[in-house]
């Protein structure tokens, strides 16, 4: 029972970081209808921004998180301006967006390799690696922190989407961006905001992931799992992405204890299963092409 609870908590904390990644991806997918494969690059930069904010400036943990989030938001918005908005203006097919995203992801990854170098870096120790004892369960402090920070930022996002005017605009645009434009929604601004939100979440995710493990230029590959989690939860559905991510994190943690060599394969097996059984995912809507 103890082992079970412990694994569950580990899985939840891993899943919540996947969820932070999947949110940014899912928001963009729901409005622009393409997979933003450059998201991994932004997450990777988040890990580096946080690292340098904490070692060079030296800022405390919270300061590092804020710097990483703001810088990532800026990067994501700039990326949209340079790579996607020319395509958006031309009404280009989504294939072109995906290609542009691929280019951006290669660019971001390799500019870090070329300037900082491909070596592994580690964060300064913020917490000692001790565990907290709650009843019989011991929880790693950093895992707990990952979960708390991810949960707080997701709750803030839910508030923004549900209660604010811009949140309403985002929801309207994801339903139909043309219809939203006709109702007076400034879709350009909505897109700016979703890239900003995605970037901020990516900054958090990157930094938390970097602290838990190590920082290296290919860390963005981890986002592949959040793409798969988004399919698992239902492509284009935000609650689906969050639930899918958390479930993936939990399943991975449990399965990893028995088949550790194939740990990274679990996400793919899950993807195949979802595609065979219920391609629309847990919460997905069936998408029909409207002419």
């Amino acid at each position, binding site marked *: 029972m103890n082992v079970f609870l412990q694994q569950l908590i580990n899985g939840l904390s891993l899943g919540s970081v996947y969820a932070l990644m999947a949110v940014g991806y899912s928001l963009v*997918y729901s409005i622009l*209808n*393409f*997979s933003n*494969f450059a998201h991994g690059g932004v997450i990777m930069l988040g890990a580096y921004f946080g690292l340098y904010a904490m070692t060079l400036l030296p800022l405390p943990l919270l300061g590092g998180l804020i710097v990483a989030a703001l810088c990532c938001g800026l990067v994501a918005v700039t990326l949209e301006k*340079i*790579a996607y908005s*020319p*395509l958006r203006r*031309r*009404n*280009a*097919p*989504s*294939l*072109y967006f*995906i*290609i*542009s995203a*691929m*280019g*951006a*992801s*290669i*660019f*971001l*990854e*390799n*500019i870090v*390799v*070329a300037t900082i170098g491909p070596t592994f870096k580690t964060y300064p120790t913020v917490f000692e690696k001790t565990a907290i004892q709650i009843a019989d369960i011991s929880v790693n402090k950093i895992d707990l922190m990952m979960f708390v920070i991810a949960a707080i930022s997701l709750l803030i996002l839910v508030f923004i989407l549900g209660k604010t005017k811009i949140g309403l605009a985002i929801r309207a645009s994801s339903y139909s961006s*043309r219809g939203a434009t006709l109702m007076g929604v400034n879709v350009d601004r909505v897109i700016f905001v979703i890239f900003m939100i995605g970037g901020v979440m990516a900054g958090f995710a990157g930094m938390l992931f970097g602290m838990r493990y190590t920082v290296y230029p290919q860390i963005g*590959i981890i986002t*592949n799992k959040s*793409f*798969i989690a*988004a*399919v698992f939860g239902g*492509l*284009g559905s935000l609650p689906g992405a969050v639930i899918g991510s958390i479930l993936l994190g939990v399943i991975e943690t449990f399965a990893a204890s028995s088949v550790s*060599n*194939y740990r*990274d*394969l679990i*996400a*793919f097996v899950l*993807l*195949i299963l979802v*595609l*065979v059984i219920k*391609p629309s995912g847990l919460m997905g809507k069936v*998408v*029909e*092409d409207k*002419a």
Partner: protein
Amino acid sequence: MAWYYLEGILILCGINVMVVLGLSLLTGFTGLFSFGHAGFMAIGAYVSASLTTMLHWPFIPAVVAGGLVAMLMSFIIGGLTLNLKGDYFCIATLGFGEAIRLILNNVQTFGGARGMASIPLKSSLVAVYAFVIIGVIFMWFLIRSRHGRNMVAIREEELAAQAIGINVFRYKMLSLAASALYAGIGGALWAHYLTFINPAMFMLTKSTEMTIMVIIGGLGSITGSIVGTFFLTFLPEAFREFADWRMVVYGAAVIAVMALRPQGLLGGIEFSPKGIIKWITTSGKSKKAQVKTPVEGGKA
């Protein structure tokens, strides 16, 4: 420049052309985007290498078998995802490429992470270019056939293509299968040129590198893809000292191409004997034999 060195690069060009031709059909002509072609290459390489080293098959049947097994795998990926609307195919190929690499990393029959060594060196210049020439001719006729035109129709406007009675799923599947076959053969030739393979050679970056060649060369152009491949295979040899910056420049180039000239270097334009003669006789007044340019703005 020593001939030996030049020959090596030319063989690599030929192998890359094989893979890029397949990707060109898939991305340039059918409008599907794959992150998993390194996986198909890996399958081709491992299958053919096992056949020649363990079962002592002759070279050519082993290479063809490698391609066919890759094609069989593509039926599984395609069958699950190609009839779904959205980016399912893209994400599935992403997972597929990584999964193949992980499996190969852990299966000790194929050497695990160390990979396979002492594969016979069979990919000579003649052998590689024999495959390339057959591949180019087949692709040329496929694109110009009814099937090729159907694929282009799907790329341009899927819904309209379906409305005029094109079986969209079937043609997407055909395109994917053909491109997996090419990638498998390319991988098999690569294995028999390098004489060793390991899973790390078939990372995501290999897939993206191949896709970049298609994009720089031009979506929707066979000759463009070939020119792009030769260009991008020779270029790094000339700029060895900037090796670190190579991928940075590629990434920026892809964004720039998509923003400024999405048809790439030669998008939609094919070199053909007829076209060149026409171009010479009319001395630059008319355009080169213009075939299908990707038209934008189809989707509202």
